[in-house]
């Protein structure tokens, strides 16, 4: 009865604070422990407790990095989850719901927004079904979904009686139970689920033991209650088990920063950037390869103005220095970024993009800060802007950013987005052996001819635009630093010729960077390199695009993907030959105006033929993108396609 699957999309939802994350962590680790590849996506409100949150986990036989809209297994902890996600369960899938939620009116859901209520009412009316959970469950059944009620109340009772758990801990263990029930439904080895439990709870051995017993209890319950062989899902590959990590995008950045030599990190709390700094503070000391100890000083400041300026002050002393923020904080930081720009200070700013403007959508994704990263701040000054497309790149880019910053003595803005930041992924351990540390032109004042007075020519113009940099405190390197235009000694000047020379000196560094940075660090080409159908994008859309390329190939359509990794200086020279043969050129972005597409047109003169955009605050799924491409291929698409999914 069960067909083997090598790609199962599992979704769990419930009120924030009830352990949806923990459950997803157990499930993901359990599957990873069996050698599967796991991708996780987390959606939540800007709220601490109570609002709806959900976690998608895709378990696959090969690496994937993006969610599917159609899920195979939905685990609901509450009625709201059922209402929001029932229609997303794919035919052949399973819907597990709390028996007590079997007949609740949809309009009784306090937090359901009007458009979704209307959408659901229309959906059910079209199918002659009542606007209730019963209607939704009936619809699911009709679509070939196996609908299984569970009584969480009874399970809690069983946990207290059979395991002797307290009421509160039984309540908390419902997570594990829900995970184990789903694992039983896909016929997954219970020992692996227990391994997932152990990996999640670590050294809290009492907790681990209790939860392991809960796994057995859940499996027994599943066997007793359901005909598992009749459930048409089975996780069907037995892959080998190489050493893998289970990390988030944010952790990847933090690890990359440590590998890259970060010594000083500042931050002011903001979603979704904070996790990075918290991780760094929790891992502030680590061994070095020579048997010593390295450390990172993490400094929480009073605001983002202080975060960026304190990081700059530290960078002046020679410390590899960084800060991390999101849109609202980045707005404040542009002041300090300009100062670092005119003073040629190496500084790394990691920007976790979220929905904007203003407070926008604090916990949802968007690629809305590209134009701001490239142009933010007043006046002309060089900056380098990088965007990571996946978790591995997030690690590499975070490390590399410091070498760019120091080599070109400038600010490097590393763009992440919430989707990538909160992505959970199985990955090979990151490769640190290839990281080359470039500390740039460091001054040696003694031999550079300093006479012990404040006269070091810190800003002497040169052909490359680079000039040796003394660290604050170094004997003989004294000079001035100022946010005002300055002479080569750093003294304020308004002399017209000096002004021009200094502006040009600074901008020349950008030309140098454009020449020196290797082509594959600027952009990467995937798919069929000679195919005219070209998808150009940046950041976290990469995974969806790569999977869509494969789907298209299965349909006999060849296509290629240009992933832009260096957004500033814009890689026009490398792009132009590719653009010449791109037909049609499709830009994919999660923002409303096609910020990358605008930059592309501005810098190369070529406008994309189609924009595929999503700006609801959620990432683009495989199905949505494939659908957009089908529309483009069939000639039905206009120049601007907006992807919508009311159920996210």
């Amino acid at each position: 009865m069960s067909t083997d699957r090598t790609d199962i999309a599992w979704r769990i939802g419930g009120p924030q604070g009830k352990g949806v994350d923990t459950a997803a962590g157990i499930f993901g680790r359990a599957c990873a422990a069996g050698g599967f590849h796991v991708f996780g996506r987390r959606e939540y409100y800007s709220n601490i407790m109570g609002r709806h949150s959900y976690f998608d986990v895709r378990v696959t036989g090969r690496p994937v990095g993006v969610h599917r809209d159609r899920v195979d297994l939905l685990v609901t902890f509450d009625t709201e989850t059922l209402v929001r996600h029932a229609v997303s369960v794919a035919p052949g899938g399973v819907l597990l719901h709390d028996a007590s939620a079997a007949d609740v009116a949809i309009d009784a859901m306090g937090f359901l927004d009007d458009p979704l209520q209307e959408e659901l009412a229309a959906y059910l009316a079209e199918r002659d079904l009542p606007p209730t959970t019963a209607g939704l469950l009936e619809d699911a059944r009709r679509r070939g979904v196996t609908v299984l009620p569970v009584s969480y109340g009874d399970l809690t009772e069983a946990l207290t009686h059979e395991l002797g758990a307290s009421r509160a801990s039984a309540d908390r263990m419902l997570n594990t139970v829900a995970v184990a029930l789903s694992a039983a439904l896909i016929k997954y080895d219970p020992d692996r689920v227990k391994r997932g439990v152990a990996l999640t709870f670590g050294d809290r051995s009492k907790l681990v033991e209790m939860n392991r017993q809960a796994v057995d209890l859940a499996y027994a319950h599943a066997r007793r209650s359901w005909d598992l062989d009749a459930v048409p899902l089975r996780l069907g590959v037995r892959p080998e088990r190489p050493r893998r990590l289970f990390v988030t995008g944010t952790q990847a950045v933090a690890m990359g920063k440590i590998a890259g030599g970060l010594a000083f990190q500042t931050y002011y709390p903001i979603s979704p950037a904070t996790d990075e700094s918290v991780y760094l503070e929790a891992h502030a000391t680590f061994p070095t390869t020579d048997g010593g100890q390295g450390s990172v000083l993490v400094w929480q400041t009073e605001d983002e103005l202080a975060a960026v300026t304190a990081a700059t002050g530290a960078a002046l002393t020679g410390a590899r220095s960084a800060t991390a923020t999101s849109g609202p904080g980045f707005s404040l930081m542009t002041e300090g970024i300009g100062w670092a720009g005119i003073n040629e200070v190496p500084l790394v700013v990691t920007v976790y993009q979220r929905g904007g403007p203003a407070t926008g959508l604090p916990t949802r994704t968007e690629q809305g800060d590209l134009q701001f990263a490239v142009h933010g701040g007043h006046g002309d000054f060089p900056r380098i802007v990088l965007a990571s497309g996946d978790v591995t790149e997030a690690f590499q880019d975070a490390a590399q950013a410091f070498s760019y910053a120091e080599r070109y003595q400038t600010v490097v803005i590393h763009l992440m987005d919430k989707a990538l930041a909160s992505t959970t992924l199985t990955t090979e351990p990151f490769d640190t052996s290839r990281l080359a540390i470039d500390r740039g032109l460091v001054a040696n004042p003694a031999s550079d001819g300093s006479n012990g007075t404040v006269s070091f020519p810190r800003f002497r113009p040169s052909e490359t635009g680079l000039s040796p940099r003394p660290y604050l405190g170094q004997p003989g390197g004294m000079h001035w630093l100022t946010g005002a235009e300055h002479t080569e000694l750093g003294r304020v000047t308004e002399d017209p010729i000096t002004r021009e020379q200094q502006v040009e000196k600074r901008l020349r560094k950008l030309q140098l960077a454009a020449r020196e940075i290797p082509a594959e660090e600027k952009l990467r080409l995937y798919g069929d390199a000679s195919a005219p159908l070209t998808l150009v994008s940046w950041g976290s859309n990469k995974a969806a695009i790569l999977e869509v390329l494969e789907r298209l190939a299965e349909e006999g359509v060849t296509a290629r993907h240009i992933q832009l990794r260096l957004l500033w200086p814009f890689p026009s020279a490398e792009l132009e030959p590719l653009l010449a043969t791109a037909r049609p050129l499709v830009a994919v972005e999660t923002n409303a105006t096609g910020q990358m597409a605008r930059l592309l047109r501005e810098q190369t003169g070529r406008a994309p033929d189609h924009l595929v955009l999503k700006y609801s605050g959620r990432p683009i799924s495989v199905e949505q993108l494939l659908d957009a491409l089908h529309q483009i291929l069939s000639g039905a698409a206009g120049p601007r396609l907006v992807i919508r999914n009311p159920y996210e």
Partner: protein
Amino acid sequence: MATVTVKDFQVGFPNDWCPGCGDFGILNSLHQALAGLGLKPHEVAVFGGIGCSGKTQYYVNAYDVHTLHGRVLPYATGAKLANPELTVVAVGGDGDGMAIGAGHFVNAGRSNLDLTYILHNNEVYGLTKGQASPTLPMGSQTKSLPEPTIQGSVNPLMLALASGYTWIGRGYAFDVRGLVELIQRAIRHKGLSFLEVLQPCPTYNNLHTKAWFAGKDQGGVPRVAPLDPSYDPVIEPDAGEGAVRARLGAFVVEATRGGEPIRTGVFLENLSVPDLGERLAQRLPAYRHAPPAHRVVADAKGRSNADLTPLFAEVAVS
């Protein structure tokens, strides 16, 4: 080795303050104080805010950092945290520190980092032509103001106390001898020091002029005078709660005293709070010998020397 002299801290560049500006007195005092402490110029970093006062560091032979309006303290904080061996002095105006930089002023107090902040208090915004600064008393009308100021004023000493500064003093720009000593004591204090300096701005502040401070209109009885010798600012490291309260009470009395003379001197020297560097060294064992400025990040071949094995082990799943 030759001893350091005042000349070592002076620069030969022209100065663009108005003649008679109180900033000159503060600058001269800073030169003398640094030389007197036996510091070498490269060991000192002077950070300035934006304003006439914020230019002070241009005239000091040291590492000189002219920052952004209001941001002098976070820049100085980052540098001192990263390189605790540096002697860090921050200077700026009352507008810079008490208005746009007020949040930083307050929060710096929480850290007790070992640096010295000198606030030039001329009650006006000099460089933007004489608008009221946050220290100008309500109802005062200096000469650029179309109307008397309708807003009240902050008391920098009280704000510093409330924020947790562990050394608090007040000086007068043209009492160079007194000021040198105050700056030296502020720098020597192991922790965060705040020194307010009353500073005539002959161009815009026609109320509190050098002549006014000198009491020319009242038969030469100066309006600034040292704290009474019986005033004891010290809170000992092991001071009990009662002793601390008594000291703070005395502080408040002096810092809020209306009328004349305006007192100068050390208002608070709190030795009971460990400085931030000590606290950091306890948390990060490497902080003392390898602070961020000295972190070695690569091996001889330019490869990253961070060993991520334990970080990977923590998140390994198979």
